[in-house]
C-alpha cells in the first residue's frame, strides 16, 4: 500500500509503524468523506452564483415589486433618492455614465490590447516577450483604488494641462484609467486565442509566400476571430463592473455626459458612494440593490456571451 520504499523494506523485517504508513492509512480511510467533500465543493460555484443573485435580489425585491416603476427607473434622468418629499429613482444618467465610460475606454483599450496581443504572440520572442508579459501582469496587479488615485493625481492634472478643462476628473480620465485596467484582460485572452490557432495554419500561409503581416491579417484574425471577440467582451465586462477607479475618476455628477470632458457617474460608483449613507430597509437602500441586480444581469449576459463565443471556436476547430 505504501509507496515509500523505506516503509516497504520495513515490512520485511520486524513490523514497525512508520509515520508515512499512518499518514497513508489515514489518507485512504478519508477516501469516502473526501470524495463527498470534493463533490460538494465542485458544486459550490453554482451555489455561490445563485446565492449572490438570491441575496442581492432579496434585498431588492420589496422595491422591485413594490413602489418602483420600472419604465421610469430606466428612462428617467432624475436621481433624487434622498428626497424626503418625493424620492425619484431614475438611473438613465447613471446608465449613460456607465455606457460613456465603457465605450470610450474600449476605444482606447481594444486596439491597443489586441495590437499588443498580436505583437507578443507573433512579432517578438524571448526576452522582449517575457518583459512585456511581466508589464501586463503588473498592470493587472495594481489595485483598483490605486488606479483611482493615479487617475486623480496623475491623469487629472495632465488632462487639465493638455485640454484646458476646468476639472481633471471626467469621462476621459476614467476612460484612460479603465482602458489601462482592462487591457491586461484583453491582451491575455487575445494572446491565448492567437496561440490556439494551429501552427499548421501559419506554416501553410508562410509557404505560400505570405509575409508576417499577411499571416496575421489574413489567417490569424479570421481563425482567432471568436477568441478575440471574447477578449473584447471580457474587457467590456471588466470596465462595466469596475468600481473604485471610476468612483474616484469620473467626477461624480449625475448628469448625462455630452462630451469627454464632462463629469459623469456610473452605476457601480453610485452604489459605492451611497450605500453607506442609505438607511437600511428604506427605498434608497433597496433601490441600490436593484441597481446591483441590473449590474449582475448585465455582466452575467456579457460573460455568458463571451463564454459562448469561445465555445464557438472550440466547436469549429478540429485540429
Amino acid at each position, binding site marked *: 500500500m505504501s*509507496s515509500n520504499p523505506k516503509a516497504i523494506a520495513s515490512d520485511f523485517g520486524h513490523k514497525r509503524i512508520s509515520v508515512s504508513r499512518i499518514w497513508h492509512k489515514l489518507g*485512504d480511510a*478519508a*477516501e469516502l468523506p*473526501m*470524495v463527498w467533500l*470534493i463533490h460538494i*465543493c*465542485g*458544486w459550490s*460555484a*453554482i451555489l*455561490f*452564483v445563485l*446565492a*449572490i443573485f438570491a*441575496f*442581492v435580489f432579496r*434585498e431588492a425585491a420589496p422595491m422591485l415589486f413594490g413602489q418602483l416603476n420600472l419604465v421610469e427607473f430606466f428612462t428617467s434622468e432624475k436621481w433624487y433618492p434622498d428626497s424626503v418629499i418625493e424620492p425619484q429613482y431614475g438611473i438613465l444618467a447613471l446608465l449613460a455614465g456607465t455606457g460613456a465610460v465603457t465605450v470610450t475606454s474600449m476605444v482606447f483599450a481594444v486596439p491597443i490590447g489586441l*495590437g499588443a496581443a*498580436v*505583437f507578443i504572440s507573433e*512579432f517578438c520572442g524571448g526576452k522582449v516577450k517575457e518583459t512585456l508579459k511581466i*508589464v501586463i*501582469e*503588473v*498592470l493587472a*496587479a*495594481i*489595485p*483598483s*483604488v*490605486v488606479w483611482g*488615485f493615479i487617475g*486623480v493625481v496623475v491623469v487629472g492634472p495632465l488632462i487639465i494641462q493638455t485640454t484646458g478643462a476646468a476639472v481633471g476628473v471626467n469621462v476621459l480620465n476614467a476612460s484612460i484609467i479603465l482602458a*489601462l485596467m482592462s487591457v491586461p484582460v484583453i*491582451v491575455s485572452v487575445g494572446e491565448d486565442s492567437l496561440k490556439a490557432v494551429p501552427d499548421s495554419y501559419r506554416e501553410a500561409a508562410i509557404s505560400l509566400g505570405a*509575409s508576417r*503581416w*499577411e499571416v496575421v*491579417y489574413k489567417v490569424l484574425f479570421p481563425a482567432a476571430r471568436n477568441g478575440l471577440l471574447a477578449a473584447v467582451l471580457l474587457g467590456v465586462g471588466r470596465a462595466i*463592473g*469596475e*468600481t*473604485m477607479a471610476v468612483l*474616484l475618476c469620473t467626477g461624480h455628477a449625475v448628469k448625462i455626459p455630452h462630451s469627454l470632458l464632462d463629469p459623469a457617474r456610473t452605476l*457601480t460608483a453610485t*452604489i*459605492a458612494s451611497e*450605500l*453607506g449613507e442609505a438607511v437600511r430597509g428604506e427605498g434608497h437602500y433597496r433601490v*441600490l*440593490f436593484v441597481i446591483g441586480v441590473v*449590474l*449582475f444581469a448585465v*455582466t*452575467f449576459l456579457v*460573460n455568458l456571451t*463571451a*463564454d459562448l463565443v469561445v465555445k464557438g471556436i472550440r466547436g469549429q476547430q478540429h485540429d
Partner: protein
Amino acid sequence: MIETKKKDPRQSNPDVRRYIVCPSASGEGQGAMERTFASIETALAAISRENEVANAADDSNTGGEATLALDLIDKLEEADGQRNKPRYRFFYDTHLMGSDGDGTERDPWPDLPSAVAGMTELHQSGRLALDPGDSILLSRRQIFTSTSLERRRKIKEAIAQYVFMAMSLSLVVPVVAILAYLTYKAWPVLSWDFLTLNPQSRMTAGGIWAPLIGTFFLVLISLLMAAPIGVLAGVYLNEYARDNWYTRIINLAVVNLAGVPSIVHALFGVGAFVLAARCGESLLAASCTLAVMTLPVIITSTREALAAVPMSFREACWNMGASRWQTIRTIVLPNSISGILTGIILQVSRAAGETAPILFTGAAFYLKVADKGWESFFPYGLDDRVMALSMHLYTLMTQVNNVPDEIVYGTAVVLIGLVLAVNSFAIVLRVYLRSRKKW
C-alpha cells in the same frame, strides 16, 4: 506600363553612365561633359552605338553598363550640380528568355538594343512627357532582388510590426512612468517607521501599521476559506466531472462568478454575511466576501494546474490498483502543487487590493489600535471592524482633510509594493518549481 517615382539608384551607385540631353548644345560631345546631346534621339542612338562597340570588343553579350541615365537639362552649366529624381524608370534584363517586354520592372525588355528601340518608340509616339530637369533611368534588372511588389509587402510588414510595437510600448511607458512618479513622490515618507507606526493625529501623521495588519488578516482569513474550497472544486472539475450538462453549468457558473462586479460582491456580502448571517460589519463578514470573490480564480488556476499533469501518470497509478482518490492524493496533487500555489498566491494580491467588497462589510475609516506589544499584532477580533490598506488609501484621498501628500503617496506605494512583491514571489516560485518538473 511606365513606372515612376522609384528610389534613385544613382545615389547609391555613382558609376551610373550619364547621358546629358541639352537642347541648347549644338552638337555631340560638346561642353565640359563627355556625353552631351542635343536631343533624346541622338542620345539613344549613341547608347546603341556604344553598346555595339562594347559587344565587338568582348563577345560576351552582357548588355553593357548596369544603369544608364538620360538627364534633360536647360543649360549646360547645370549639368554638374543637380541630379534630378528620375521621372521614368525602365528596365532590361538579359537573363530573360522572352523576346518581348514593356520596360517595366515586372516585364523588362530582353536586351539593350530592344530597350533603346522601345524607348525611341515611346519617345516618338509622344508618350514620354519630359520637361527640362527630368531624367530617365534605364537599369539592368538584377536577378535575385526583390521586385516592387515584394518591397511593398516588406514595407507593410515593417509598418505593421512597428505599429504593434508602439501599441505594446504604450502599455510599458505609462506603467514605468506611473510607478516611478509615485515612488518619487512617496520617497520622503518611506521608512520602517511608516510601516510600523499607527496613523496619528486624525491620520495626518504617523504610519500605516493598523491598516497593514488589517489587510493581512483579511487576506489570511479569506484565503483560509477560499483555498480549500477552490482547490477541491478544481479537483472535482478536472478529475471527477464528466463532460455532461451539469459540468457545463458549473463551468459557466465559475466564469460568471469571476465576472461579477466587485461592488455586487459587496452587496452580496451585506445581504448574506452582514444581515442574514448576523455577522454585522466585521472582519469575518469582509473576509467571507473576499473569499467568495477570489474563489473562481482559485478554481480555474487549480484546474489548469491539474490538467497539466500528464494523463499517463494517472493511468500508471490506476494500473497499480489505486483508487481515484489515492491517485489524486499521491500522484496528481504533489505534481501540480506549484501551479496550485501560484494561483492561490496571486489571489493574495487581488484580495489585498480590493476595496469595494469590504467597503460595507467590515472596513472601517479609522480605528484606534494598540501601538505596542503583542496586542498590536492581533488588534482585531473576528467580529470587530478592521482597517485595511486599500480602504485607508481611499479614506485618505476622500474623507480626510490636510493629509500631507507624502502619506497618501506612501500608502499607495506600499499597497502597490505589497501586491507586486507577492506577485513576483509567485512568479519566482512558478519558475523554480517548473524547473524541477519531472516531465
